[in-house]
């Protein structure tokens, strides 16, 4: 009986390792997105999505993702260096007051933003449209070594024009799964 339990445990462990490895290997190296020789981006492109275009000459660097199903939301990953936050390692290091300049000048967003955390405890500000009835969107903003990482999510072109909670969660998962791989 003991032997059987031990064997079962081993099988479960092996399977979970294999699954973790499979997920890791499914990550795409967005090799064209190298940020000033500092890091490159790796991530899991959500099912049904593909990279529509990449702009990587100068700042900001951008990657736009679209789904064949045009009712599904589109999203754009934008990376821009912030000289005024160049010494900040990550968003978690800033107080609420210090974060304000990142968002409070934009009249298009609802000033009452929320903060979510990735699986690695990195804080992300979730900004929503100030006028969701006219123009809905969500922006996920965080900082990494002086770079602002922003993911902008827009309703699909043939959708009802509004984002759902599931779509917000999908975008957050994508951001959470992004790896910033140091190049040195």
């Amino acid at each position, binding site marked *: 009986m003991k032997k059987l339990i031990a064997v079962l445990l081993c099988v479960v462990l092996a399977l979970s390792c294999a699954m973790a490895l499979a997920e890791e290997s499914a990550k795409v190296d967005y090799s064209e997105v190298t940020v000033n020789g500092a890091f490159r981006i790796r991530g899991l492109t959500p099912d049904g999505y593909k990279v529509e275009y990449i702009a990587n000459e100068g700042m900001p660097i951008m990657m736009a993702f679209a789904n064949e199903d045009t009712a599904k939301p589109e999203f754009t990953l934008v990376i821009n260096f912030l000289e*005024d936050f160049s010494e900040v390692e990550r968003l978690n290091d800033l107080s609420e007051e210090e974060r304000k300049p990142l968002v409070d*000048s934009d009249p298009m967003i609802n000033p009452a933003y929320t903060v979510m955390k990735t699986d690695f405890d990195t804080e992300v500000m979730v900004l929503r449209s100030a006028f969701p009835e006219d123009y809905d969107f969500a922006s996920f903003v965080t900082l990494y070594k002086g770079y602002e990482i922003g993911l902008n999510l827009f309703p699909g072109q043939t959708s009802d024009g509004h984002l759902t909670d599931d779509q917000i969660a999908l975008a957050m998962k994508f951001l959470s799964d992004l790896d910033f791989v140091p190049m040195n």
Partner: protein
Amino acid sequence: MKKRAVLFILALVMLTVSIASFASAERVVKYVYCRNGGPLNVRAYPDVNSQLLGKIPTGTQITIEGYTSNYTWATFIYNGQIAYVMTQYLVDSPYSPVTPVPTATPAPAPSPSGNTNIINAMETEFRSYHVVNSYTVLAKPDRATGWVNLRYAPSTAFGHAGNLYANTQLTVIAETTNWLQVRRNDTGVTGYVMRQYVIYAGVGAQQ
């Protein structure tokens, strides 16, 4: 002797050409603006990893000598040497912060209707419409990873023809009081942007 004369003339021609090209580069006055009110890093090369030459306070006026090809960096003379700052921290006029005064939401006016207001506002804009000699502007969103709306008509009531991220190059075709009719240099798509969300980058259409 002949060789010397030829060399001298060649040197003179080269000098004249270089002076002419420097003079033809359009110098533009800009002001430094960091959202946190702090100073801006001045760098030796157009690279965020390059040597820091110093810092200039928000509000400082500088004369831009030119830009890198993608407009990410602007070059100017700093303490007698060529230096670079990121274009996204430059504005066309001195920034004067305005503290918003909270006001009660006004009750909707019974007439004219919202649509009439929109039409009237657009009519006013179109009355001031005039074609201009083309010049280049760069999109300047309020957030570093945000965007500026490119709209089909000079009104916020109209749907948008695309998102313009920071430093997107636009050729101005025409102007109204509050809006610019522009053509994206990368895709050729045309539309309208609000004046306050662009900065001037130079005379003529550029690619």
